[in-house]
């Protein structure tokens, strides 16, 4: 196998031979470490959003509805905020409410007029589910 190494070497090979071995060994870990630290500093802790702090709001973040379940009074509007960088929906399984496509950073309001328990999901990412409990 190694017999062919050393033939057909071009100018690039000569340049590479000037790079010290320790630099060749260290360059990828160093670049990766820098990328990790820069990413961490640039994007914060990636934790919970504060945009749905009130009890009548649902935040969509990291492909999760929060809080879940949420309890509201009948007829009270629920603000839905999409904090992910992809589009989601919040759609009642029975069709009682539906935000439709909610792009990144967008918000909408839904209302459940009657008391009961409503299961909902994201129509785009069907594994995302949640529950709204509506009290009289």
């Amino acid at each position, binding site marked *: *196998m*190694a*017999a*062919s*190494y*050393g*033939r*057909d*070497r*071009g100018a*690039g*090979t000569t340049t*590479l*031979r000037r790079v010290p*071995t320790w630099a*060749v*060994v260290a*360059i*990828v*870990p160093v*670049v*990766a470490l820098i*990328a*990790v630290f820069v*990413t961490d500093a640039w*994007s914060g802790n*990636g934790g919970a959003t504060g945009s749905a702090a009130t009890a009548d709001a649902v935040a969509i*973040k*990291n*492909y*999760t509805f929060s809080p879940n379940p949420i309890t509201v009074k009948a007829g009270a509007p629920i603000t839905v905020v999409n904090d*992910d*960088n*992809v*589009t989601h929906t919040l759609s009642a399984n029975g069709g009682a409410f539906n935000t439709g496509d909610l792009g990144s950073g967008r918000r909408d309001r839904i209302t459940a007029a009657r008391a009961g328990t409503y299961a909902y999901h994201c129509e*785009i*990412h*069907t*594994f995302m589910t949640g529950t709204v409990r509506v009290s009289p």
Partner: protein
Amino acid sequence: MTPRRPLLLLVGGVSVLVSGYVHYYLYFKGGYRNIAPDNFAGLTISRSFAINAVAGFVIAWALVLSLRFPKLAVPSALAGAGFAAATLAAYVLTRTVGLLGFSDDQLTAEAVVAFVAELIALGALGSWLVGERTFLRPVGRAA
């Protein structure tokens, strides 16, 4: 010693590292950490992102090391090409029939960067392997 056409290995290594970084970013910062609609032998879509990130780092490191240690060149190029092909195939599945219960046809900047990086990695490492294919034959039959 340095393997022939080291630039292709270097380009492949950088591209694999970029792909691994994008998956690292999506796992820790992009919301893919807790997505597990389906589980196959312990593998979820979230864990596949973490595995991709670690594998991308290790393979990229091996590819760069192969510039100084030529015995690493063929295995790391094979691993890099396989990594890129598998990641591309997984991406296509998530945009079509779904993978591990996850599907999404939305185009994001992260997806474009990773997709392009994987295409470049596959092209560079595939070209390098095709050029070095005599190394893969038994010694007695090598040209």
